[in-house]
């Protein structure tokens, strides 16, 4: 498959794996890159030297390009920004903040910079700052989210910028990928489907919750704090939403979510953990390898696009 994104990154398929905190470590990223997509290591709040170690381990497992996701509000962001350059990482995706101050460093080193955006204004600003592409992420996604849906966001971002757009949020198969192309995207990013992949290191209980999930099983907590997060509903989210309704203070809410993603990922705690997942979790039925996921998705997208002219008389 050939799009502006496969050309930009020299990858086989324009399929990114989201740089999810705690989940997106070197084994998952390497598996996705080896299957022809772009694997991404989520630096999140990990200490910089741990990130360097992850990058080096990833290089041992793949000679294909992979990326690192950097959360810019994190105090470690500056150190991680330098490490990706030192380690020769091919691409960086950024979240939670402004990559402006690192742009020169990265561009000079030939790192492709692809910020994750949730609005048109943000996309325009990133383009002006020198971004090579943007991931337009709708609120169907798991984890930290914006407020516009993928369906509405992607075409508006596509119209607003001239750099390629990768669609994210609510995509878990080839139909979603084909739809993203129709909206003008040049690639897709999937998160939840890769959380449930064979190579994903998350606890079996977490994967099973995704596989079991129905369409209505994701909820958004943290609306009141200004940092909304989508995850699968469980006892923790129920308590959290109840507290939010009662206008509980920030510290009380924080108590519920402190370390809760780690609990879900590592301990498989489906009661108190934050099982971050997107609205599309209900579509995911089984655990597959990253290669199966990518090849199936791409093939289905191609079939969908080829079939349109025949099925529908518009």
């Amino acid at each position, binding site marked *: 498959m050939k799009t502006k994104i496969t050309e930009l990154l020299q990858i086989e398929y324009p399929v990114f794996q989201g740089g999810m905190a705690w989940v997106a470590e070197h084994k998952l990223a390497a598996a996705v890159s080896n299957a022809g997509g772009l694997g991404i290591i989520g630096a999140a709040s990990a200490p910089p030297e741990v990130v360097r170690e992850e990058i080096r381990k990833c290089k041992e497992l793949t000679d294909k390009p992979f990326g690192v996701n950097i959360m810019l509000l994190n105090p470690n962001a500056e150190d991680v920004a330098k490490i990706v350059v030192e380690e020769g990482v091919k691409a960086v995706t950024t979240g939670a903040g*402004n990559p402006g*101050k690192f742009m020169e460093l990265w561009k000079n080193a030939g790192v492709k910079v692809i910020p994750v955006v949730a*609005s048109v*204004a*943000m996309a325009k*600003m990133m383009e002006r*700052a020198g971004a090579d592409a943007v991931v337009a992420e709708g609120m169907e996604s798991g984890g930290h989210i914006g*407020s516009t849906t993928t369906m509405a966001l992607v075409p508006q971002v596509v119209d607003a910028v001239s750099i390629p757009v990768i669609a994210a949020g609510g995509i878990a198969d080839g139909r979603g990928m084909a739809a993203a192309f129709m909206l003008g995207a040049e690639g897709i990013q999937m998160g939840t489907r890769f959380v449930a992949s064979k190579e994903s290191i998350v606890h079996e209980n977490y994967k099973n919750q995704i596989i079991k999930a129905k369409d209505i099983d994701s909820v958004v907590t943290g609306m009141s704090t*200004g940092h909304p997060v989508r995850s699968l509903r469980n006892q923790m989210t129920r308590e959290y939403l109840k507290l939010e309704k009662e206008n509980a203070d920030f510290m009380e809410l924080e108590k519920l979510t402190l370390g809760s993603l780690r609990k879900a990922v590592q301990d498989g705690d489906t009661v108190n953990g934050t099982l971050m997942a997107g609205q599309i979790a209900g579509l995911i039925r089984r655990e597959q390898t990253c290669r199966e996921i990518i090849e199936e998705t791409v093939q289905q997208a191609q079939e969908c696009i080829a079939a349109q002219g025949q099925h529908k008389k518009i």
Partner: protein
Amino acid sequence: MLEKVAAIIREQLNQENVEITEATRFKEDLEVDSLDLFELVMAFEEEYGVSIPSEELENMATVGDVIRYIQEHA
């Protein structure tokens, strides 16, 4: 200057009657989130022909900060 900047803010946030002074804080007083902030910066740039680099955004807490930035750079 304040009146015009205030008008842009009211327009962008769809808050026609909100009171705005130089001391008005974006986050605490206007409930502006990060997406709104990007929106506002784009609008200021369009109006005043200045370029506000994204890294400057973090330093702008109040309406007065924005006005000073525009005056210095326009």
